[in-house]
């Protein structure tokens, strides 16, 4: 039997879509989230639809001191770990509220980096596996409208890049996913350009294919690669005056 796919942040729209995509291919699924009771319906759903084994696990990305024991108590070590955790409150609120600022930094960078580096050690010893981090195009350049979230994601992107470098020789895949806009709870109520906005299922499909093809970094909608090239290349004096 195949080793399972672990999804960290499984109650999110993207987490649910990813779980469905892998379950549809017959992978056993481990769902992890802070409120473990909210995962029970998803467990039932995946089991009925796809006939795969599903287990649920309590996981608090901010409680980094528990991460090692979280990995130890898993009934089976996963083949693939996908970290979907993310938190993006209003930028304005972050500027006024230090605790919110910290929560953004810790949820989007510290926690995901800690849990994935612990898994990296396990995978390295074992000699196979894939580690997937959902980062963000917001991490490619800091912008006034979103730089707390963006800088944490920038850190996470750099972390994934370094981890990939380290593990290149041991055959462990490290995949950085840059989704661009996605229609989820996080972006609800925002006016998003349809051409640039992916559905959670598209993200799930892109991840599934990227794992099969052993990719390193993917933009879910290819157009984002070119948009970010332009945004990165705008000279700072000009960039300062743009509202982005």
């Amino acid at each position: 039997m195949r080793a399972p796919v672990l999804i960290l942040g499984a109650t999110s729209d993207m987490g649910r879509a990813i779980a469905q995509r892998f379950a549809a291919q017959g992978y056993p699924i481990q769902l992890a989230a802070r409120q473990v009771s909210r995962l029970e319906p998803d467990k039932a759903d995946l089991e009925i639809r796809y006939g795969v084994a599903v287990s649920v696990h309590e996981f608090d990305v901010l409680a980094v001191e528990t991460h090692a024991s979280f990995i130890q108590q898993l009934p089976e070590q996963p083949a693939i770990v996908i970290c979907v955790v993310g938190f993006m409150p209003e930028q304005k609120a972050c500027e006024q509220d230090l605790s919110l600022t910290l929560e953004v930094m810790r949820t989007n960078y510290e926690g995901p980096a800690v849990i994935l580096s612990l898994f990296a050690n396990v995978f390295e010893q074992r000699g196979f596996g894939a580690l997937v981090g959902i980062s963000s195009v917001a991490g490619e350049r800091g912008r006034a409208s979103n730089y707390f979230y963006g800088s944490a994601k920038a850190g996470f992107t750099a972390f994934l890049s370094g981890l990939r470098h380290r593990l290149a020789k041991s055959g462990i895949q490290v995949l950085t996913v840059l989704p661009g806009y996605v229609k989820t709870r996080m972006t609800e109520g925002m006016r998003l350009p349809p051409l640039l906005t992916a559905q959670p299922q598209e993200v799930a499909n892109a991840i599934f294919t990227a794992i099969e093809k052993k990719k390193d970094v993917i933009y879910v909608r290819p157009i984002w690669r070119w948009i970010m090239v332009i945004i990165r290349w705008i000279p700072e004096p000009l960039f300062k005056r743009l509202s982005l």
Partner: protein
Amino acid sequence: MSSPMTPRGSLKTLCGWGRYPVQTCHVYCPRSESEILQLLKRDLPLIARGNGRAYGDSALNGEATLQMRHFNRLLGFNPHTGQLIAEAGVLLAEILEIFVPRGWFPLITPGTKFVTVGGMIAADVHGKNHHKEGSFVQSLDWLDLLTSEGQIYRCSPSENQDLFYWTVGGMGLTGVILRAAFRLRPIETAWIRQTTRIAKHLDEVIDLFEAAQDVTYSVAWIDCLATGSQLGRSVLILGEHATREELPAKYRQRPLRTPQRRKLSIPVDFPNGALNPLTVRAFNQLYFLNQQRQASQSFVDWDRFFYPLDSLLGWNRIYGRRGFVQFQCVLPLSTAREGLSALLHCTSAAGAGSFLAVLKKLGDQQGYFSFPMAGYTLALDFPMSQRTLKVLDQLEEITLHYGGRFYLAKDSHLTPMRLRQSDARVETFVKVRDAQQWTVNFASEQSKRLHL
């Protein structure tokens, strides 16, 4: 991540399947019960919306429309009883895709599979087997309802019975349906053994229906433009789930698999008026010729038999940008012949050719506010225009005269007065809604229009 937030709403332009009326709504897409609770606490009336397949304004509310599609999990299936437990936003199409290959079929299904579980309960939908097996409530073991007080009640024929029978057919006006348990039937094959009969006029089709009492599925397509002695000319379609034995050898190997059908979609709005008496007449002629040429008995896969229009994705666009209205009433057995004849006369006299005209025999009904009653139901649709509105007025008057009533899931035109004249249960429903404070929390554009 952090504490459960009140879901952010967004302004969206919504309409029903008929694309009339169109309404700007504050739309909320909750992911959890606690988010719905937060919204209920504001005491602004809201309406739950499934897949938007009610034709008119049943699932619209300008103040707050709850998009329930994130509640789309299957929670349990018992292979001994066929009982499926599902969240309200699960689509019937998903259920079919998963369970037909496993040998199960919904006990009751409406004529489209693009409806949600919640929607099927709220409208207490009926299908081609209503005369024999009743409406959706007959297959329903229980439902969980989130009510005005913010409580979740398990409702069934034996538990919170009144709430149960007001909720089925209650058009979402009693609370938010969260999940439900209902039964599927075992099937040996995914095929229907279909028999077609041509009826030369209305009397003949009714005779054929009466003779086919014991057949599980029956429905008739009427040529609405036929007049005089041909009034009510129709094709009666009868069906039974085929057993494995009955199947032709080529299907018998894998009896639960059916060929994939090509889906056509209507990519653009047809020009207003593309459907006119001439084109409809041409369509009906072709349809009848085709039916006459086909062998009277054949094996049809479940998708083509139950959901012939679903293969034409977005078929509502053929009516053009102005949209269309559907009219569906039921007449009691005692007046059915006379009343149907009057309704068809009115339609053909107005030259307002209806593209689809469906006639179906209905049986008795359980729900306190469900649409069906023992008799005959006629469904017609018309492209939206000023003339159509006049025809609807006449059709409604005729229905009242013959003691019939109207299907709210199709309606976008009735007045409070006519609804009350048609159905003595309305007053009771309104009284209960007031007494239970449901009016504070639950309303749709339809309930506002009809003073429910």
